[in-house]
């Protein structure tokens, strides 16, 4: 099938792309839109490094065709924070050494963000279960879990202060 026009909302901005239906979303994001936060890790839907949000769900973008995401709302790590304004999760990953090589981190944080949207006050066990689809080969997860719990506490405190 020839290249097709697809329209996605990526990090709040409407983006038009031209690609074959067989193109995977991770490649469209990285190669066409220059959104290189989501990483290609295993490319077999195991490692979670390519995790993005599609319509409010955490999804491995190596296992979704861009055609399937036509019309969808996509959020990547770039949509959560910026170098000048880190997201609380990014701050806490830095503070608690939640990363070493950093390759899995965008997927981890994107997934953790959705987890905390659905369960703002998770137990340690719920965090571990909630990030079970993201692999890290450096940290042993201990500091990742700490970072997410610390982010949850800070987000909850900020919410309480605002109320």
């Amino acid at each position: 099938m020839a290249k097709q026009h697809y329209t996605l909302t990526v990090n709040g901005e409407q983006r038009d792309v031209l690609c074959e239906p067989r193109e995977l979303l991770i490649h469209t994001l990285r190669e066409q839109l220059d959104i290189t936060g989501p990483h290609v890790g295993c490319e077999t839907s195991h490692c979670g490094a390519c995790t993005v949000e599609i319509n409010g769900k955490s999804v491995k973008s190596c296992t979704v065709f861009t055609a399937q995401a036509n019309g969808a709302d996509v959020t990547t790590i770039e949509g959560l924070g910026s170098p000048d304004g880190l997201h609380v999760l990014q701050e806490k990953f830095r503070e608690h050494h939640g990363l070493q090589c950093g390759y899995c981190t965008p997927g981890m944080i994107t997934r953790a963000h959705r987890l905390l949207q659905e369960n703002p006050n998770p137990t340690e066990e719920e965090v571990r279960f909630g990030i079970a689809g993201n692999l890290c080969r450096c940290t042993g997860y201990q500091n990742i879990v700490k970072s997410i719990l610390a982010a949850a506490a800070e987000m909850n405190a900020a919410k309480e202060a605002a109320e």
Partner: protein
Amino acid sequence: MIPARFEYHRPSDVSAALAILTEHGDDARVLAGGHSLIPMMKLRMAAIEHLIDLQDIAELKGISVDGGTITIGAMTTQHELIDNADLAKAAPILREAALQIADPQVRYVGTVGGNVANGDPGNDMPGLMQCLGATFHLVGPGGTRDVAARDYYEAAYMTDREDDEILVSVSFPVPEGGYAYEKQKRKIGDYATAACAVQVTMAGGSCTAASIAMTNLSDTPIWSKDAGAVLVGTDCGPGAIGAAVDAAVAAIDPTEDNRGPVEFKKHVAGVVIRRAIERAISRA
């Protein structure tokens, strides 16, 4: 890993999807969540010329608990199963099983229909549906057709579904009594080394009904009529449970793969089946 070229279709109702299937025959496949099919396409183990994405078909979605019957649309995701309070109350075994499928990201997109229709012996829903005595509802050019879950699976990836049929929903009676879905897997995201679904009802200290089905221990799911029958009429004491485990293990035919040799799988099956039966009884 780039799949071979295909034409992408996204119909908005079942009749449009059927028309595309009819036109292209076995060159066409329907796409549900895609987390079985897309990896196969990337490996070029599945060559599909016409991919029919079912995501826009509203009539394939939703969960209803109506009277004594539960109906689940084929495009309902595992995440939606886990998240549905009515379903968790009416048939908690579905939530228990769905939480053990793959990982969170896969459960957001993986569907009940894809899981049961594909015929992959590693999938968890087929054994569960056999345990529950479910019926699969198919639609094709000639109209609708119902097939019992216990009659649907023929061999690995071979099912009673014709190439021009779509599975639209599954339904089953609201289960009674105690339940358990027990699964042994090597790691998150792997298929079961062995898994077992059990529903048991007890009355006055005696078992009145039992249904036992197993996952990934043969080239199809296995519902063991004998294993259930062994428990009925007993007090479900250690002797009866042991006999039921023996009957269930006698019904399986595992093959050696990277999860272990046949002897190991039979051993693990025995452990998993026993745990499932004991937990179901403890909840009955």
